[in-house]
């Protein structure tokens, strides 16, 4: 239960961070991505702040044996720079550049209604589609191993 409240609080804080930073404004995001136009570099400082605080405190945190209310730290284990990583980033980047929304900000912005809601619906379809393909790929691999 404590863990659920912590997750709720983290989500609130995350949403506040997106609002304060300006990430919820697609026009600002597109202005940041428009390097050759009237470039607005301010959103680079979102990464400076977010990464900076994690570089220092996150490092200390992960030295602990376990999180406060969990068995262990759940960190990604993949290390390969592979096709899905790169192509996924390309596809994501094109969508980000077209709409000016990435997943966190658009969920916050959807509270205001409008096209953000439509974007969220399309995003959920895209995510579910990829997860469906991934499961099929995994099943196909399993059956190959089983046959061999």
């Amino acid at each position, binding site marked *: 239960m404590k863990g659920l409240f912590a997750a709720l609080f983290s989500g609130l804080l995350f949403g506040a*961070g997106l609002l304060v*930073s300006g990430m*919820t404004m697609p*026009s600002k995001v*597109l202005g940041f991505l428009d390097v050759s136009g009237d470039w607005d570099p301010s959103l680079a*400082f979102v990464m400076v702040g977010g990464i900076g605080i994690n570089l220092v405190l996150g490092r200390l945190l992960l030295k602990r044996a376990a999180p406060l209310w969990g068995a262990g730290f759940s960190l990604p284990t993949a290390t390969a720079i592979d096709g899905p990583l790169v192509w996924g980033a390309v596809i*994501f980047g094109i969508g980000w550049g*077209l*709409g000016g929304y990435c997943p966190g900000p658009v969920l916050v912005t959807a509270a205001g209604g409008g096209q953000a809601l439509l974007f969220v619906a399309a995003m959920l379809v895209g995510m579910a589609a990829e997860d469906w393909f991934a499961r099929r790929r995994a099943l196909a691999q399993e059956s190959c191993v089983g046959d061999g």
Partner: protein
Amino acid sequence: MHPFLQALLGGMLLGGAALVLMGTIGRTAGISGIVSGLWKPTAPRGWQAAFLVGLLLAGVAGFALFPTRFDAGDSAGLPVTIAAGLLVGFGSRLGSGCTSGHGICGLARLSPRSAVSVGTFMAAAGVTVFVVRHLLGGGQ
């Protein structure tokens, strides 16, 4: 407040939120992973739902208090919005993360995969904006 300071402060709040999630329940604040975790049959779903409720509550409060932070990307037409949403959803899952999981959490852990991802999606997004705004002449 200067936009640079707003962005820095906002970024620190994002980083702080990620620290809270990792420090309390040991999970990464990657939004695309959290959202899709909702329909994973194996994952414990409670914390993802709680995090998203918090995110949506921040949106509701933000819309009431600071409506100017919602500039409605309604400049893009419906087909573009739908296409962009599909691409963002599909790509973030295929690439194992987005601006939060790779861009903040992964880079702060000095993950080479995240560095490749961030470099790639920044470049792809930049090229897309260049094509839309300066070659096709669309957009704002």
